[in-house]
């Protein structure tokens, strides 16, 4: 277990063109089916990052894998934990209470339907009109970026982005690199003193 800060994916809003390919690639990376054409999809596109488009900015937003993750702290059933340097939701444990969704300051969590073999999994819920009977509703879980830790080629969104707007940031390493750069520039400037 390393003591370093967890990685996260950062997007460059200067580069992002809003094509949403990252969302599609993310959904594909988290789907059990092997469908690779639109017609063969048996579930909707369910991304774990969200391309935001406003008149001022176009950029995808996703989990920062906070060190003191509010979502994990507040989850009443302990479905969220830190694994392999990422904040992960255990799909099977999640009860869809939405507490983490409210707690995340970035809006990085969305309640997504659970699909198995091309069908949404349904669960019994209390009927609104009649308290004694039950109805069926799709089962939901808190879907969020898991840094594609199960994927050999790393995060799918980073790989697909045609504008190279996304990158996997290792904060500890980035800090060290910046320190070295600063030191070098210090060296250059100090040489000018003599």
């Amino acid at each position: 277990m390393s003591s370093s800060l967890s990685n996260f994916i950062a997007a460059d809003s200067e580069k992002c063109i809003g094509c949403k390919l990252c969302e599609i690639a993310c959904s594909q990376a988290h789907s059990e089916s092997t469908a690779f054409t639109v017609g063969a999809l048996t579930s909707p596109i369910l991304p774990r990052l969200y391309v935001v488009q406003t008149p001022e900015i176009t950029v995808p937003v996703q989990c920062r894998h906070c060190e003191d993750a509010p979502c994990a702290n507040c989850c009443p059933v302990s479905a969220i934990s830190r694994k392999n340097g990422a904040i992960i939701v255990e799909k099977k444990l999640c009860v869809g209470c939405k507490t983490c969704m409210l707690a995340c300051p970035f809006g990085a969590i969305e309640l997504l339907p659970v699909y198995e073999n091309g069908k949404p999994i349904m669960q019994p819920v209390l009927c609104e009109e009649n308290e004694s009977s039950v109805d069926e509703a799709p089962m939901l879980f808190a879907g969020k970026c898991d840094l594609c830790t199960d994927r050999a080629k790393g995060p799918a969104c980073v790989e697909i982005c045609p504008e190279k707007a996304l990158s996997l940031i290792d904060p500890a390493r980035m800090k060290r690199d910046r320190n070295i750069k600063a030191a070098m520039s210090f060296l250059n400037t100090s040489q000018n003193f003599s």
Partner: protein
Amino acid sequence: MTKVRELIKIDPELCTGCERCKDVCPVNAIFGKKGEPHRVESSRCVFCGQCVQTCSGYSSVLDEPETPRADKLRERGMFESTTEPLFAAYCAGDALEVAAALKTDKFSMVQCAPSVRVAIGEDFGMPAGSLTPGKMAAALRRIGFSRVYDTNFAADLTIMEEGHELLARISTDATLPMFTSCCPAWVRFMEQHYSDLLPHLSSCKSPQQMSGALFKTYGADIDGKAREEIYSVAVMPCTCKKYESARPEMSMDGYRDVDAVITTRELAYLIREAGIDFTSLPDEDFDRPLGTYTGAGNIFGVTGGVMEAALRTAYELVSGEPVPDTDLLFVRGGEGTRTAFITIEDKTFKVAVVAGLKYVAPLLEKVRAGEADVDFVEVMCCPSGCISGGGQPKVLLPTERDEVYMCRRKSIYSHDKDSKIRKSHENPDVQKAYADFLGEPLGHTSHKLLHTTYTKRDI
């Protein structure tokens, strides 16, 4: 000229203005400011549908657009039962119209282009390039078509007509080089931008239109039907084939050769709507005679295929001997332009193959200047030929597209390799059609049914 149908459209509610479609459009027909909804200028568009294949702006279930999904489906000519995600750039389809017509008492005849059979399985979860001619024929029969014929038959016929046309042009010093005319997007581009060079286009109709013309004459006779009883449908990998079938030149005595065109994707919608489990269908044969085909007919679906099929036959027509090797590897390849020589007896023919409309201009400029040193040119608008057409199953991730197209291409060639007959002029039912009905290549009946004319078009 009446206003052309707006075949290729962009849904302003879904378009994010990313401009990726602009990058693939070979004729700069897409307009719009970055970050704002784009639009297609139909008068410029050649209807290739490459933008449809590229667009990744989709309608998310997490964020429903203003217009309800049901309305969007109707606008796109899709069944209400279709669940696939909707993308901003799309082709307005005809599956609803075909489904309705199949319920009437018309005698329906259907044809399928070669690249449909190497791709349709993908939309049912099969591996890339799965070869499924038999399942496709079975599905079409179950959907309710009275005759399940094949465009490949007419591809063989095209080789007969086009091959003789080329040799006639060479022997009479007529306009050369001759360009193929199978790809309607390419023909439209010529009519729009190089109308002075139209005499260079082969006068042959495309295989789709040759099939249609035969369905309503020869085919109708075989079944004892009148021309007006026939409903003629084509299943195509290409969105522009919808435009081609509607051209006024593509009809006879007021009857259209092809009444409706659906894409590979739309056939998949029809199969799903009918509740057919495609993957478990048995392999069935196409109906004869208009469904009999050779390996040469089948390779029309890839870039270089028309050229290869033509050379297999031309070699024999000129020399009286079969081509030494049926696999003419020198005309095969990918996107871009390639040239080759073939020596038949003491004559050397120079041929060129262009895949991707954006590569054709330099060659056309040379032809214009009278400096093109080439006899016969195949042009296809789409980057890998019809297997990469705008109506084919849409590959979700661009990183996988090349691999998928390669699988489709391999599958086309292996189907050719495994065919008992691999040369168009050896197709027994093509020979029979000439003997019983058409007479001879370039003859009177051929001329009337299988050849056409082109017109200058303004943009």
